[in-house]
């Protein structure tokens, strides 16, 4: 016992010494990439045995899955001596539910625009110390001080993308106009349409189609949008999120709205697929780094954010997941062909025709939530149905059990 303890102490000292003395100004990554790290003190927390809990979307970071890809978290651990505990979520709402119920401690969150605004409003985020994130200077000016974080105190953008329509060229008529949301309401494609199973994106589509803003809080407009979604339900094959890969890849459906980066991945798998951006307008989303209140490793988290804004790291992430990087130096490092890929980097003209989600007021959000539940489940019956059923069910159960009990008693007597 004692011997191992001495050994491990000795080992730690050696580790520390190598880290402190040998940190070179140019840090050569194992995979052959070189970054100039001399202008930032990356190793200041190396000996503190810090573990950083990162909560990100699935398939949303360049990690080594055994195929020699650039491993962001591995490189970060090697560089800083800070451990990364990486977990995934599937939707902004899931992240919100996790955070709201407490009990779990994260140091880095990567939610989308409207959710960041909501978390700020509810006081669930920590203000960032931008002195620790000098690489924020690399970010394009248009991504600074966004509507969801007007003073830019809480977030640093990670990646961004837009929503369009993925369609199967063998199943959709060549003469049909796919650059409009109307095609998702075309009866010709009944039972061939997939739709978002999250309310915000579904309402966005319905609102744009009716000429409303996707950020509308007007009750009449929201109800009208919900009516249209109810009509669409008769044509929808299934409400999906990640299942879309399987279904579009296998030619199960003709049309589905989805995010451009994922669409690019689907097209790579199935060349029959194509992507169109509706001219009515669409959503431009930004996912950004935040630090939740109660994080015990705030400084380490800021070092992590700074690392992910490094030109090379941002470049690798953007190339791996197929979404736009807001880091200017990373964009400039792309090859001209990559910059010209309009699937990942839509033209300015298209981007001008997009709207970023704002945080809705709780009242408007509740209205959308209940309308959405109403759309997914047909609604009817008078409000007294449930109380009556509830009382009847409990009453009958009681009666049955009491009768049994009495019977048993009389039988034994």
């Amino acid at each position, binding site marked *: 016992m004692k011997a191992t303890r001495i050994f491990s102490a000795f080992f730690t000292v050696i580790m520390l010494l190598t880290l402190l003395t040998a940190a070179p100004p140019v840090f050569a990554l194992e995979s052959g990439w070189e970054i100039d790290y001399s202008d930032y003190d990356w190793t200041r927390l190396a000996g503190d045995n810090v573990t950083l809990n990162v909560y990100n979307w699935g398939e949303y970071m360049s990690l080594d899955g055994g195929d020699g890809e650039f491993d962001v978290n591995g490189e970060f651990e090697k560089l800083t001596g800070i451990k990364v505990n990486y977990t995934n979520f599937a939707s902004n709402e899931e992240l*919100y539910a996790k955070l709201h119920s407490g009990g779990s401690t994260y140091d880095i969150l990567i939610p989308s625009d409207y959710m960041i605004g909501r978390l700020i409003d509810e006081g669930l985020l920590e203000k960032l110390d931008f002195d620790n994130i000098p690489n924020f200077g690399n970010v394009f000016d248009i991504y600074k001080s966004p509507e969801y974080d007007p003073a830019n105190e809480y977030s640093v953008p990670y990646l961004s993308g837009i929503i369009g329509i993925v369609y199967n060229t063998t199943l959709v008529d060549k003469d049909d106009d796919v650059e409009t949301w109307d095609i998702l309401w075309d009866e010709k494609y009944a039972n061939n349409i997939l739709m978002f199973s999250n309310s915000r994106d579904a309402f966005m589509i319905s609102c744009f189609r009716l000429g409303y803003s996707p950020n509308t809080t007007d009750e009449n407009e929201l109800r009208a949008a919900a009516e249209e979604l109810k009509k669409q339900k008769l044509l929808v094959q299934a409400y999906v999120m990640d299942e879309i890969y399987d279904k579009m890849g296998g030619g*199960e459906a003709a049309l589905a709205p989805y995010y451009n980066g994922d669409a690019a991945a689907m097209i790579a798998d199935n060349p029959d697929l194509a992507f169109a951006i509706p001219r009515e307008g669409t959503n431009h989303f930004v996912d950004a780094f935040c630090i939740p209140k109660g994080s015990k490793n705030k400084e380490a988290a800021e070092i992590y954010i700074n690392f992910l804004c490094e030109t090379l790291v941002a470049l690798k992430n953007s190339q791996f997941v197929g979404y736009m990087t807001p880091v200017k130096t990373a964009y400039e490092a792309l090859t001209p062909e990559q910059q010209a890929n309009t699937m990942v980097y839509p033209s300015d003209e298209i981007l001008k025709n997009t709207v970023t989600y704002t945080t809705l007021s709780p*009242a408007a959000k509740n209205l959308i939530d209940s309308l959405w539940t109403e759309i997914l*489940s047909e609604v009817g019956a008078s*409000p007294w149905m*449930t109380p009556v059923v509830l009382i009847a069910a409990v009453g009958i159960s009681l009666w049955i059990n009491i009768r049994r009990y009495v019977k048993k008693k009389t039988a034994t007597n």
Partner: protein
Amino acid sequence: MTRKSRFLAAPYLVWLAIFTIIPLALIVVFAFTTTVTVDETGRIITAEELLSAEADGVVLGELTEKTVFTLDNITATSAYMPVMVRSIWLALIATVLCLVIGYPTAYLISRLTFSRQKMMLMLVMLPMWMNFLLRTYAWMTLLERNGWINKLLGLIGLGPFEMINTQGAVVLGMVYNYLPFMILPLYSIMTKIDNSVLEAAGDLGCNPIKTFSRVVWPLSLPGVATGITMVFVPAISTFIISRMLGGGTNMLIGDLIDLQFLGNAYNPNLGAAISLVLMAVILLCMSITNALDNEDMEGGALL
């Protein structure tokens, strides 16, 4: 019950209190409360007022949130009665199908030699060695429009049939996943029916049909009751089967609850109210099945 045996029950009682009674109480509390916005004077501000104030740019003063008692959640669940009815209906069909398939299977297994019984039981359990999600996912690829079943049928010139995203697919998923829960309790009760009992019935002049209706069936009732409960309860509250095989358009009560907690419509109060209704339905179902074997169910039943 002696003092000692009561003492032995203590660990379970603690477990019961922490993980069953307290969560149940929390659900009841959630179901009957709601969070409202109030201004300084304590007046409740409705959602409509908030929306219109926001539209007009009016500031309503210092607003705070408060938890108050309400019956609104319970009455609000009435709107989802069609979902409730559909869940009960589909779970009922699945339970009946499980019984129809499981009963003869269990009887046949119970009449085999002991080593064969073991072997057959293992075969019944075999699908359960694989993860529940994977099993359901596999059905997705089988039933799809370009799936394996349609491909096979296409070879002999049939189809393609619309199988995925229908209620039939959901019932199939339930039957497939919960059939072992029907067979196992039935089997365990049927092995206790001695062959000599059946022979005696025959000697006393019963034909096979009468032997079944007057001997086997009454003796197996506790197993039937347990089997029905063990299939019906998970089937009525499932959400992953309906999402994967029903395509999200055949929503069940489980999906509705999931939607209120982890899904898009974050409303734990409504979710708790729906759970409460579901619990009442399950209670009713269990009471009825228990009444089924009320006469002499000394021993045998698993529940």
